[in-house]
């Protein structure tokens, strides 16, 4: 081996280096998500905590299993599987049986990431792939929502949480069952409709206050609007967020909703409801902005965001499902390579007419 003089070392681009690396980017997003996640656990109790933990386990175990031996410690420590697990966990109903949560995490990484060639090669956001699979596979369990009970019932465990693998909710024993260990109670839980479900099937709105502070039924990490926005602001300050995408989503969804309101103010929900209910904030700020699955150009980011916003409003108001964030992002993920291709900036030194080949 020849020892090289470091001053003579030839380097390829990029020559300008930032401190940004995959682990730090992942850590920022995780930190931003943490308050909303903790709020979800606060409202939905022990079951929510278990669901998130098991989802993360499913994701990490799959990542470990599908990575070649010598890369394992690196692949796990970059935090991407952890983030996928957390994001997916936050979109799940708090009373989901744990075995389904595990499968969701495993599918998210297996089908959503490793099959495409690992981090950076996937077309679709892994967390959303996991959720879409669960929604298609277990539609009833995935749309059974519960009232946000609050911290005083923290140790009440939903009976469906502990369903045996491949089995439905076990038959509920007479009364509430005290598990060994003292404080943990097994309960049936009060099922309830989400704000979006109420809007779709019963034309009932939900006050904006509840949407912001999270005491509504819904996925365990999507209900605390305010904390999700705060996390987004933190990411903005850290410059870890492509701000054009959420902005474009909010603008297009907002404008579209206002137009619909002009047509029939009774049938269509108002703009606050559109922007702060369901998975809108979680999806727009944390999922659509995944750098791997969103366009790389600023122009592309606008197109991408506008597409998602329009699709969300379309699916919510005219489709069969109450919520559309998931499918809107998936569809625009699929369009991302195309958007990238058509929004390439002009190469410096070339005339406007000639496109970059």
């Amino acid at each position: 081996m020849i020892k090289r003089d470091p001053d003579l070392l030839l380097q390829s681009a990029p020559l300008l280096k930032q401190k940004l690396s995959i682990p730090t980017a992942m850590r920022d997003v995780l930190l931003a998500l943490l308050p909303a996640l903790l709020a979800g656990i606060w409202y939905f109790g022990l079951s929510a905590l278990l669901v998130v933990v098991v989802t993360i386990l499913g994701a990490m175990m799959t990542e470990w299993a599908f990575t070649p031996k010598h890369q394992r410690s690196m692949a796990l420590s970059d935090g991407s599987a952890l983030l996928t697990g957390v994001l997916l966990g936050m979109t799940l109903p708090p009373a989901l049986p744990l075995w389904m949560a595990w499968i969701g995490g495993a599918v998210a990484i297996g089908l959503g990431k490793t099959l495409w060639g690992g981090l950076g090669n996937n077309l679709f956001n892994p967390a959303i792939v996991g959720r879409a699979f669960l929604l298609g596979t277990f539609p009833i369990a995935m749309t059974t929502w519960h009232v946000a009970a609050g911290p005083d019932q923290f140790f009440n465990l939903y009976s469906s949480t502990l369903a045996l693998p491949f089995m439905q909710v076990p038959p509920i024993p007479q009364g509430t069952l005290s598990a060994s260990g003292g404080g943990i109670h097994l309960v049936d839980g009060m099922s309830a409709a989400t704000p979006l479900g109420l809007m779709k099937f019963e034309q009932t709105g939900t006050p904006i206050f509840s949407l912001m502070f999270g005491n509504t039924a819904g996925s365990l990490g999507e209900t605390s609007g305010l904390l999700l926005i705060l996390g987004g602001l933190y990411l903005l300050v850290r410059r870890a967020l492509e701000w054009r995408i959420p902005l474009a989503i909010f603008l297009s969804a907002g404008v579209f909703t206002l137009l619909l309101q002009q047509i029939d103010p009774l049938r269509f929900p108002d703009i606050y409801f559109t922007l702060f209910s369901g998975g809108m904030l979680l999806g727009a700020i944390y999922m659509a902005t995944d750098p791997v699955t969103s366009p790389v150009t600023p122009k592309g980011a606008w197109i991408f965001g506008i597409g998602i916003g329009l699709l969300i409003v379309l699916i919510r108001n005219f489709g069969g499902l109450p919520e559309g964030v998931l499918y809107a992002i998936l569809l625009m993920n699929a369009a991302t390579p195309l958007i990238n291709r058509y929004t390439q900036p002009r190469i410096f030194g070339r005339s406007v007419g000639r496109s970059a080949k």
Partner: protein
Amino acid sequence: MSAPVEIKEPSSFRLASTLAIAGLISGVAIVAVYEATLPTITHNKAEELKAAVFKVLPEVTEMRKYQYENNSLRFRTEEGSDDQTLYGGYSQQGAFVGYAIPSAGPGFQDTIGILYGYIPEQRKVVGMEILESRETPGLGDKIYKDLYFVSNFENLSIDPEIMVVKKGLRDEPHEVDAITGATISSKAVVRIINEGNQRWIHKIPTHGIPLPEQKGAE
């Protein structure tokens, strides 16, 4: 195939006659099979229909095809059109029990075809059978797999109109509990029955058409 051998083009006549002969032989084979299987197929279809009619009308052992023509109901003859057909069910003693009414309409996926039993004297639907459906397996197909949902139709008043309510909220005789997760399919079934009622109820006599004597004695 590599050597450029001069191949003589066969004449068009030869090409055409080859195809014609192949078609002829194939035609003969198909007709033979068709003729051989037709009796069994017709028999199966009739049996299936009979089983469905017996299922939707309680204590019925005999059925007749009816046809509506020129503002009156009569026994169906061979040349009748299918969309004006319904069935009458008779008890073992030959007494008229009720009608089995076919009706179809759009479901969540595709057309749902239904046969339901109706007793005019009580103005009640007494049974429902799905003849044709492509509803989502696991969800929409509960309209015939969920026996609780099917049992909703065993004693159902048609006045003022059959209604779907959220599961567990059924308390009127004209209400049906929807299937959790398949509201659209449940509503489709009820809508199709209501449409059938609108089409038929005002046309059909309360006591059907009495069977000819020799049939009743059998």
